[in-house]
């Protein structure tokens, strides 16, 4: 369980979110500029809240006195444009988080290989990410975030970087993949179609205010 209760003064409006995210996908919908990325960046530790606290499975990530740095949070994040490392190949991108944890090269190779199999990108393991299609990039980003066995998963508009033709197909793949993920997962999107694809739990964000009961 991811428990978020934070406030942060943004330039245009105050941001305030109070939400408990259970294991499984929670979709946060809202127009662009509503503060969706802010919510994810707060949870990831890339932003500091003015007040409030964030807990993950009972572990305090931040409150008035404490702040766990993003690199110690064990939270996987898929960025809007995927933020893949252009100087590394697919395998090195996926293995990056394992390298950060000092895991031996042999074990790293094995875990990366398993992840690439699972995401059906094993053929591309030596390819630089610039040569990948949009859908392949998204799978690399997801594999990179999941290989570290994160305690929570954050997805920032995971489909918006794709062209409309592939978006529908990739949405189906993403849904199938996320069904196998058993940690609290926040997926933010402005796209109503995404919301329809993940109907289980949907919340709405409007001008920095999180409305828990959305439908």
């Amino acid at each position, binding site marked *: 369980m991811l428990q978020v209760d934070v406030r942060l003064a943004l330039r245009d409006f105050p941001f305030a979110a109070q939400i408990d995210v259970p294991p499984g996908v929670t979709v946060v919908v809202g127009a662009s500029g509503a503060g969706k990325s802010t919510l994810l960046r707060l949870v990831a*530790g890339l932003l500091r809240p003015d007040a409030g606290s964030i807990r993950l499975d009972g572990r305090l990530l931040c409150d008035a006195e404490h702040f766990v740095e993003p*690199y110690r949070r064990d939270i996987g*994040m898929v*960025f809007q444009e995927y933020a*893949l*490392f252009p100087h590394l190949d697919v395998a090195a991108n996926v293995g990056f988080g394992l390298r950060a944890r000092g895991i031996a090269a042999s074990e790293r190779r094995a875990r990366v290989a398993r992840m690439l199999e699972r995401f059906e990108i094993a053929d591309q393991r030596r390819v630089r990410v610039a040569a990948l299609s949009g859908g392949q990039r998204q799978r690399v980003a997801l594999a990179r*975030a999941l290989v*570290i066995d994160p305690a929570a998963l954050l997805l920032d508009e995971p489909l918006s970087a794709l062209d409309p033709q592939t978006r529908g197909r990739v949405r189906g793949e993403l849904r199938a993949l996320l069904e196998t993920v058993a940690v609290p997962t926040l997926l933010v999107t402005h796209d109503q179609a995404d919301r329809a694809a993940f109907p289980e739990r949907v919340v709405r964000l409007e001008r920095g205010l999180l409305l828990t009961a959305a439908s």
Partner: protein
Amino acid sequence: MIRAAIAIASATLVAFIVVPLAALLLRLTPAELIASLQTPAALTALGLSALTTMISLAITLLLGTPLAFVLARADFAGRRLVDALVDVPIVVPPAVAGLALLLAFGRFGLLGPPLRALGIQLSFTTAAVVLAQVFVASPFYVRAARGAFAAADQNLEAASATLGMGPLRTFALVTVPLAGPALFGGAILTWARALGEFGGTIMFAGNLSGVSQTLPLLVYLELEGGNIAVATAVSVVMIAASLVTILIVRTFERR
């Protein structure tokens, strides 16, 4: 008509630049060139220039990289002033640079007494050569690195952080490799500027074979002594170095 005028104007300037360079190259036969370079003074100056420019480059990379990062990313009072100050040596006349160094680090300069207390005299030493080179050449690297760090995609650094890499390793494994070509280009420019450094060196480090007589000083001195062959040979080496430098920088800019 206008095309012809443009062509003539362009050709004139190109010829103006190429002819003196060609004159240097054509002055000596390859055998004379090699013989002139094998004089003890030339070999010593070659070695000293290689040594001092490498040390200057290392110091610039070590101190300039963090500085460039701070200038590109951090927001602090006086950042713009520091930013401007770092560029000053690029436009300062070389003799002014030498005088400034002398008045700062010379025996009776600003920092003379504390240095003397430590038993250090900088002027007229190889260390002074390095200081002069760092002073005039490091801004070229800092400029290039600052631009690269400012232009870098910070989402990539954020991604690295969420994957568990601390700030230092993120810098080493993500920021620097991505800025790599620009950093390399800046480093090459700095090295070339250090290699050509003359005014600051003669003012601050003097001129002594094996201690402070770098290639540019040797060229000047051999001319004074009427030894045009050695001066020409060393000049050819320096022009070759400049040409290689420019080609390397161009190649990296294109990537």
